[in-house]
């Protein structure tokens, strides 16, 4: 036996120990090498001139605009379809799209749209008033012969006020409303209402979801499920032919995988760079980091029907106790700004910061708690989700909020739920189960009319709507109703500003932050505009060298 070569026990322990240390240290050792590595090496997988590859956060669920409920899938729709009206670049001001002009009857119950002449769908059929009627009848009428190509979950929420769609002439269409709905015009910018080719829906029926046909700057070519979706330029696009020849979307579900693939050159554009990777992307030569404040708000609902948060002083104290700037800077790494109310600043016409602002002030919080006469310390249950659309870093944020509250004597007991279960819990209401719960919202229509009536409206107290803390203020309810009956945007804006002032004083939520959307592109990409709505718009202006 070659005993002299035998590994002693001590030697073995040493070797294993060294191995463990080395393997643990390997990523750290390699990290500087990665960021220093030349970006886009000899064979960048995606660098075909005229072709752009966009990384998605998941496989799209469908390409039928009416069916979609997730922001990720909606990213493709702007490439293939158009809406009646759209937002101007960089703002929530309306601009013509498939409709060239529009007007409303004095009572607000008739919306009339003049349509753009000479537009054709990708299948060669004409875009006209019949196509608009077909699109909205399919979405809204359960007895429509093509209603079974749905379901269309978002349609009743956005377009529920439409009673009937009438064709006046081939290029004039009229919506007749059941009730006044001043938010409807903004709702026509939404993905749900994108105009589909009637011919294609009739031919493909349910398969339309896999074979989309619209009027947009790019035509659908193929959907290689879970691998890629390929679109090609529509040279006849009414707003100018795209500069690109080809647009490809790839699903990359894991966020680190997405970053890796971007750094390896496999995709040209990724959205939602995680806060921890932003410095890495910014320090990569040949990568461009884009930011755009958006229509997002993140808050903690307080249960206004149960002690201690039925007391407005306690709710205000909670707002003073939470250090929101620390949250946006330390946890979210600057990917968000502090929120002062329920409406995000991106909605410039409806937003105001002239409200009671709750700057971080634990002393003030303690003082308010004393004034409230509530017995200290306070014990409450705090619902926290593990993840969720628009929820940013819900667990870390929940823990930080918990620590801030504990410092003033509010002991929040965190209960964590996975997103699907969380929505169920929150949707049923906080009731006697919880004092606090996290939530967020995306105002993608650029209009508070589609959010506030479901979240801060008395009659929408859960489970009727999504007003989980059951905030009820008759004055706010009345203002919300009247905002739907006023058609002048400035006038509506001032009503929403008034609502913000009342809501800020009532403090039914801890207002936390507004997210800043971000994206990373390689330097070969041009013309990518992040829109405040978080939609991808004006895609015919994209370039790739």
């Amino acid at each position, binding site marked *: 036996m070659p005993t002299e070569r035998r590994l002693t026990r001590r030697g073995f322990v040493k070797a294993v120990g060294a191995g463990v240390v080395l393997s643990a240290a390997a990523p750290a050792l390699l990290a500087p090498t990665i960021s220093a590595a030349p970006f886009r090496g000899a064979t960048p997988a995606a660098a075909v001139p005229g072709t752009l590859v966009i990384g998605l956060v998941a496989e799209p669920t469908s390409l039928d605009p009416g069916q979609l409920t997730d922001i990720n899938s909606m990213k493709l729709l702007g490439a293939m379809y158009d809406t009646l009206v759209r937002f101007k670049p960089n703002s929530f001001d309306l601009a013509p799209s498939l409709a060239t002009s529009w007007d409303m009857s004095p009572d607000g119950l008739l919306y009339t749209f003049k349509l753009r002449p000479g537009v054709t769908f990708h299948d060669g059929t004409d875009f006209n008033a019949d196509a608009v009627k077909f699109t909205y009848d399919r979405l809204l009428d359960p007895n429509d012969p093509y209603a079974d190509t749905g379901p269309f*979950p978002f349609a*009743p929420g956005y377009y529920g006020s439409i009673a009937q769609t009438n064709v006046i002439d081939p290029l004039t269409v009229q919506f007749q409303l059941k009730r006044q709905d001043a938010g409807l015009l903004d709702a026509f910018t939404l993905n749900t209402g994108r105009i589909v080719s009637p011919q294609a829906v009739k031919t493909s029926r349910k398969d339309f979801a896999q074979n989309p046909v619209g009027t947009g700057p790019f035509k659908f070519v193929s959907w290689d499920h879970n691998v890629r979706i390929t679109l090609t330029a529509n040279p006849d696009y009414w707003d100018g032919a795209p500069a690109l020849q080809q647009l490809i979307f790839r699903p990359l579900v894991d966020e680190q995988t997405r970053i890796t*693939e971007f750094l390896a050159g496999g995709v040209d554009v990724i959205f939602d760079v995680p806060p921890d990777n932003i410095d890495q992307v910014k320090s990569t030569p040949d990568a461009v980091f884009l930011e755009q404040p958006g229509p997002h708000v993140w808050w903690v609902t307080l249960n206004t029907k149960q002690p201690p948060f039925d007391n407005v002083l306690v709710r205000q104290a909670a707002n003073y106790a939470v250090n929101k700037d620390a949250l946006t800077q330390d946890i979210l790494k600057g990917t968000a700004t502090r929120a002062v109310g329920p409406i995000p600043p991106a909605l410039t016409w409806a937003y105001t910061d002239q409200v009671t602002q709750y700057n971080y002030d634990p002393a003030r919080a303690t003082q308010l708690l004393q004034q409230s006469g509530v017995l200290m310390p306070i014990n409450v249950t705090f619902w926290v989700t593990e993840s969720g659309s628009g929820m940013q870093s819900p667990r870390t944020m929940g823990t930080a909020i918990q620590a801030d509250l504990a410092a003033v004597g509010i002991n929040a007991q965190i209960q964590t739920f996975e997103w699907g279960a969380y929505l169920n819990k929150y949707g049923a209401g906080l009731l006697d189960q919880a004092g606090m719960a996290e939530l967020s919202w995306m105002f993608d229509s650029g209009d508070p009319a589609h959010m506030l009536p479901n979240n801060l409206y008395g009659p929408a107290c859960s489970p009727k709507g999504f007003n989980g803390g059951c905030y009820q203020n008759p004055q706010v309810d009345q203002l919300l109703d009247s905002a739907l009956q006023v058609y002048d945007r400035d006038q509506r804006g001032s009503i929403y500003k008034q609502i913000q002032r009342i809501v800020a004083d009532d403090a039914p939520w801890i207002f936390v932050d507004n997210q800043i959307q971000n994206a990373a592109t390689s330097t070969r990409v041009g013309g990518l505009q992040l829109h405040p709505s978080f939609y991808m718009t004006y895609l015919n202006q994209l370039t790739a060298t």
Partner: protein
Amino acid sequence: MQRYLLQRLALVVVVLLSVSLLVFVVTRLTPGDPARVMLGPRATDEQLAQLHVIYGLDQPIHVQYVSWLGHILRGDLGESIQLHRPVLTEVAERFRATLVLAFAAMLVAFSTGIGVGLAAALRANTLLDRLLMSVALLGISLPPFWVGLILIIAFSLILRWLPATGMLSATGDGGPPDLLAHLVLPTISLAVVPLAVIARLTRANVLEVVNQLYVRTARAKGLPPLVVVLGHIMRNTLIGTVTILGLEAGWLLAGTVYIETVFAWPGLGSMLVNAILQRDYPLVQGGVLLVAGVYVLINLATDILYLYLDPRLRYA
């Protein structure tokens, strides 16, 4: 033997029925609701009720189960709530991707694992043996997703030899060379653990057999070493190896989920995770049933393989 096979097949049916019931009940008992996940914070009770009717979720649970089972017997797994396409189509595509990866990993794990184990056993207690077994121990200890990340850093980000993620490149033609290039890194990451297990097991089995009298007899007869190794040593270690084959194949099919996540591989594991998060009942049920079916069939095949490999079992 026929009777034995019939018994086993009957058992397969019972197992699958139980799995179908279990997965159905568990998905319904899990808090959450596909309609709520779809609508998010936009949900009103009216909209939820509408969607429940469309998806048949307003029916009593036993009615839903019987109707689902009836459709399965007619070969219809239903339609995915989230993906708006037939469950069978989605599951089949995902399963194919997982199968490609699992098969490649199995091929690498078994060919290399048996080779390494045999080499170590035949040179037992030498430096080669210790080196191989230390590497194998390391292999078992490394989390596969970590191996995957390290491989990506080394071969995709620094050396730029191989694509980092995906099954096919976005702009390529999707031909076999494209697929092979994408297969290399995930295959290695997935194969490391089973390879190491097989190598250690093969070594132990071979060592047990190598000193048996019949091996000595074979050598004494003057048989060439290769014949001794293949015909006498390996043949008698195969039962153990096949047992592991069955177990590891199941593990590879179900356990690819980490690797699929790291490499954005469009397989069944990542599909199931997502379907569960979205409460896509038909897709979860169809996916689990398929995985269970394959697992049960692999085990059946393993048992049948025993009979072939070891004649003694045929009369037991």
